[in-house]
């Protein structure tokens, strides 16, 4: 990749040339991934997969995506060294990849711009998406407004109530927000409802999936559009420190921001990859979203992966103070990275995340998203283990403005 010309090359979107890093022809990462969907959706998934492979090889598509990332999303994003925060993290050198500085305030914009362009390429005029915290919904509504696409967002009734501000943002951006009143009335049920819409309206509609989960080719496409995070960060850290980081840390819900920053480092054996899941009220409470660390292998939302489920395969509802991590499944590539040992996953409780949230605000003047605060809490522990010689790159996946309501309650502000 050159620093002039385009940010994105076909190689940046592909598996980075690292063997075994792309899914097989059935969309499997080892035993994970694949497609477990009604047959009615197979042609649509094939169509999306083909359109994406064509787009990836089309310089005009890459140029347009690149142009939007630069002039609309605000890429490349900065890497910020946080010394005062690092002192708390065992004196380690902590570098933040500032996805919070993108337009709409979170890394989600990278994927939605790529997929919105793909929608136009598919000749479709209507976009549907699911959202939990509302960040993916807001990003999708934004991209649809920009490209003149009709936009319908499915959001659990419970999430609509706790993220009322984002509902208003989506409406202002011209999207229709449909509250989902069945099941647990949260993200997983919004995904079910989006699939029901898709199978009914597939001729006109693209399902703009928001994370690296779901049936093939979504885990691959979303990863590739998020991959720019790590591609940029790797170069920036090399320029700043003269070497690669010792560890990369990111929060994991569905796993898109984590895969986005991990992926460019998978071929660097000296770089440890650490994912932090939402521990909620702690493992013992049963109220958590510890899919990789405590879940079991199953099938959810079209892919084989780790799932929170009971002994008969019924999905167990997750819990997290962060709506963006409150999901009982996870992307299949993370399941594969866990089982191959290339990445390590840990839990961070609500309380630990909120402590890191306030710490970054007070020591660095940066208010992170509560999702990203899970990665920061993990970094504090990791830095104390690795010591002052270590460099840790953290994906600051989003900003915390959306979380002020939660913070006011939590800290009695």
């Amino acid at each position, binding site marked *: 990749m050159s620093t002039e010309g385009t940010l994105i090359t076909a190689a940046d979107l592909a598996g980075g040339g690292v063997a075994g890093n792309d899914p097989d022809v059935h969309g499997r990462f080892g035993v994970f991934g694949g497609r*477990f969907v009604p047959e009615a959706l197979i042609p649509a998934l094939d169509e999306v997969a083909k359109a994406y492979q064509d787009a990836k090889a089309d310089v005009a598509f890459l140029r347009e995506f690149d142009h939007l990332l630069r002039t609309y999303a605000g890429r490349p994003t900065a890497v910020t060294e946080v010394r005062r925060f690092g002192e708390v993290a065992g004196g380690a050198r902590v570098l933040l990849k500032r996805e919070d500085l993108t337009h709409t305030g979170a890394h989600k914009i990278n994927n939605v711009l790529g997929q919105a362009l793909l929608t136009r390429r598919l000749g479709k005029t209507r976009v549907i998406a699911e959202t939990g915290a509302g960040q993916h919904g807001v990003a999708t509504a934004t991209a649809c407004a920009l490209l003149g696409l009709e936009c319908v967002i499915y959001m659990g009734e419970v999430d609509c109530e706790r993220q009322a501000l984002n509902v208003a943002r989506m409406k202002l951006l011209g999207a229709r927000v449909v509250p989902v009143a069945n099941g647990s009335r949260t993200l997983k049920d919004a995904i079910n409802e989006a699939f029901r819409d898709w199978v009914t309206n*597939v001729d006109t509609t693209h399902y703009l999936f928001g994370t690296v989960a779901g049936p093939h080719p979504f885990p691959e496409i979303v990863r590739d559009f998020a991959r720019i995070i790590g591609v940029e960060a790797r170069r920036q850290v090399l320029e700043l420190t003269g070497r690669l980081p010792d560890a990369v840390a990111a929060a994991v819900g569905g796993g898109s921001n984590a895969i986005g920053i991990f992926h460019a480092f998978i071929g660097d054996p000296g770089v440890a990859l650490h994912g932090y899941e939402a521990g909620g009220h702690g493992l013992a409470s049963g109220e958590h979203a510890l899919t990789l660390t405590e879940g079991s292998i199953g099938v959810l939302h079209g892919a084989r992966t780790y799932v929170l489920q009971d002994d008969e395969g019924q999905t167990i509802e997750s819990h997290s103070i962060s709506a963006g991590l409150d999901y009982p499944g996870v992307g299949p590539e993370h399941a594969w990275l866990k089982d191959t040992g290339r990445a390590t996953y840990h839990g961070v409780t609500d309380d630990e995340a909120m402590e890191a949230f306030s710490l970054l605000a007070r020591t660095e003047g940066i208010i992170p998203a509560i999702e990203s605060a899970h990665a920061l809490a993990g970094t504090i522990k990791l830095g104390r283990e690795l010591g002052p010689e270590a460099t840790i790159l953290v994906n600051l996946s989003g900003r915390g403005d959306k979380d002020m309501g939660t913070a006011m309650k939590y800290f009695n502000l």
Partner: protein
Amino acid sequence: MTTLQTVFEKARADKRAALIGYLPAGFPTKDGAVAAATAMVEAGCDVIEIGLPYSDPLMDGPTIQAAVHQALTGGTRIADVMRTVEGVAKTGAAVLVMTYWNPIDRYGAERFARDLAGAGGAGTITPDLTPEEAAPWRRFSAEAGIDTVFLVAPSSTGERIQAVAECCTGFVYAASLMGVTGARESVGVAAEGLVKRTRAHTDLPVCVGLGVGTGAQAAEVAGYADGVIVGSAFIRRLLDAPDEATGLASVRELAAELAAGVRA
């Protein structure tokens, strides 16, 4: 155990289509499901699909979602599904289990096939198991002597229909329209064409489901398909009934109407 083969041979001899009714285990109650399915068989259903209630039924419409939710809230487990199959099999109907893949996967596919055969089940319908992922399930089902039914849809290409039909034993399930389960004003116009396209790839019976809910619709579908599948319309009768006895009578009445339809 009555097999699907027996059912379709008999229907063919009678020069009519087979009638297939769906109901989730545990709905309206564990015993109520057996009673309702029994009424459906007595009034003319040849095959009963027992739904395995699952927390994330992403291809089901509001009616089946409501029934499944009620079944899960009532504590329905896989052992109850097996007991329901056993109870309904006594009526002489062929009994299938219709289920999303994850509950079988978690239970253990080999164990599930064996237990279902032991309960007198004739096979399964697995709507989210694609041919690419189906090999182990086909093997365990064959070993247990039960049928495997998979779905084709109006969007399916010839190549996909071929791949799905190769995985099927018993019959091929043709989804009449692009959408979720639920009764509709009219059966999808794509259904007849899909049945024709499917017949080009298989000698198995082809049955049509999704959107069928009246005797007239059953008669229409019976004109071109080997079987007519009805689910949500039965459930709607039970959901709307003020008490269990009324619900049973209503289900019986609908089954009789549909049975007349497939004989029209």
